[in-house]
């Protein structure tokens, strides 16, 4: 079934509360361990310094800032559908950033074009001062560059390398935009450090590339789950071998490229580590995660120690964007990072598991 949406997908947002919700710490009670008390505090600094706005517009024209349409967006998301594919992405500020009054450093983006789509998620490094800008620029520029490279191509393109080249051009464009922004603003490259995971469909093939952590999973028509890409495993949590726009990162991105036939792919999931870590290992838990989105949370679904407050199905909800934003508020002890999840479904292919 073909269900088309305009090329200008509209972001949906949840606003921050006007004032901080300051909860006083309770006095410790003897013999009972203290419980964590989380607060929600708006960021005290602008998402993008005013003097850099023109530079941001120059390197990422059309980028929708999270504070562009009113109060700063606590969470954001969008959906789109075309040619038998449905795309849904949401990004939510984690509890730790909310508690400390920091910005969300994740970003996500989906774009449609003739005979295909492109999606990206990114997680700005917490140790980098302006990684939120890095993640937003990287996802925006990469997806738009891929669309630019593919939107005039034929759906049944006989050239298998076309998709790979388009993804490489998207990665290169994102890297270039980050470096250009750093130069214009007088920033060090490390100030913009971000991961990047990009996927695109064209000519019946799906291609992916990745630098840094985060995870992808393909839910296949035969009920299996495959992981086309995954970041290198580091010995300790929170350590990433390569970030954009560091030297050598673009080579990592290009080398990671995978292109495969999309005909048996019922769904493709892209996640930043804020989602991957609570559901680790993703190869084992991506299936139950998708089942939650599809059917809702019930006792028969293995949740990997995750407690979900949003128990209704997400993908069939009247407003899937808000439903996914609410679902991303799931809880797991010690897992309080920003979360970004992109779910791409092929309507004609069902996932039997």
């Amino acid at each position, binding site marked *: 079934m073909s269900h088309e949406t305009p090329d200008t997908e509209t972001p949906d947002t949840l606003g921050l509360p006007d004032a901080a919700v300051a909860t006083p710490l309770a006095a410790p009670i003897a013999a009972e361990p203290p419980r964590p008390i989380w607060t929600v505090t708006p960021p005290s600094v602008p998402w993008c310094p005013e003097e850099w706005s023109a530079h941001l517009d120059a390197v990422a024209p059309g980028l929708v800032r999270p504070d562009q349409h009113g109060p700063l967006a606590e969470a954001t998301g969008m959906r789109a559908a075309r040619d038998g594919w449905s795309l849904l992405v949401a990004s939510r500020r984690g*509890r730790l950033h909310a508690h400390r009054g920091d910005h969300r450093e994740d970003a996500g983006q989906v774009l449609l074009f003739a005979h295909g789509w492109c999606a990206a998620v990114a997680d700005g490094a917490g*140790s980098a001062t302006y990684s939120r800008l890095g993640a937003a620029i990287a996802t925006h520029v990469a997806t738009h560059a891929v669309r630019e490279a593919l939107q005039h191509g034929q759906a049944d393109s006989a050239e298998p390398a076309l998709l790979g080249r388009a993804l490489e051009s998207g990665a290169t464009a994102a890297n270039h935009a980050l470096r250009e922004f750093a130069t214009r603003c007088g920033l060090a490259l490390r100030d913009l450090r971000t991961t990047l995971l990009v996927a695109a469909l064209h000519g019946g093939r799906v291609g992916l590339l990745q630098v840094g952590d985060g995870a992808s999973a393909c839910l296949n028509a035969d009920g299996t789950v495959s992981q086309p890409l995954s970041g290198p495993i580091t*010995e*300790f949590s929170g350590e990433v*071998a390569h*970030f954009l726009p560091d030297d050598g990162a673009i080579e990592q991105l290009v080398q990671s490229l995978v292109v495969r036939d999309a005909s048996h792919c019922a769904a493709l999931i892209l996640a930043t580590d804020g989602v991957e870590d609570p559901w680790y*290992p993703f190869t084992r838990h991506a299936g139950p995660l998708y089942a939650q989105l599809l059917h809702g949370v019930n006792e028969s679904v293995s949740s990997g120690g995750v407690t979900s407050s949003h128990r209704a199905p997400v993908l069939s909800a009247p407003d899937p964007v808000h439903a996914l934003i609410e679902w991303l508020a799931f809880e797991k002890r010690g897992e309080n990072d920003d979360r970004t999840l992109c779910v791409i479904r092929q309507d004609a292919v069902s996932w039997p598991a």
Partner: protein
Amino acid sequence: MQGTPIESVKSGIRQLHRDLLGDPQAIESAYLSVLTFANAAQQIVPLTEVAMFNPPELQASGQTNFGDGLRLLLEVFERELVRTTADQKGDWRPLVFILSDGAPTDVDWPVYAQQLRERRPANIIAVACGDQADVEALKQVTEIVIQMQDMSPDAFKAFFRFVSASVKQTSAKVGAVGDGGGITLPPPPPGITIVP
């Protein structure tokens, strides 16, 4: 370390604990352990989650068996740290503060210092307390050595606030150590300098 300084360290650990109990992320994810080294090394408190941690009594005595302290540190890393595998997510790289106000009295310490430098199982910050501390020995263990000349209670109080801020800051995503990354510490308080 004896007298007022050791009392200040004890007080500082209690202060650190109180401070971390006020941080929800620390309650959910931080663990504390205390090791001492005198005639021999001892793990006074095993790695314990913040909510269950009881600040220990510390007693200064005997010599400075630095080598045994480093040996025990390596042993604790092997025994208590969880590394990331394909099946499980590991711990964050530990943050270790080594406080010393003297010079090693054993001869084996360079062997363990070298092992620590090579394996990099933790982000180690060595603290040279007072003017009798052997800065060069500490430099053999880690490139991050800070000097705290003033050993007054107020100086230790400021130092442990720095420790607390460092613990809270280390749950940020960083570049891998092998890739030239590593942690970024908060600025040290006045009176504490980073040894170049």
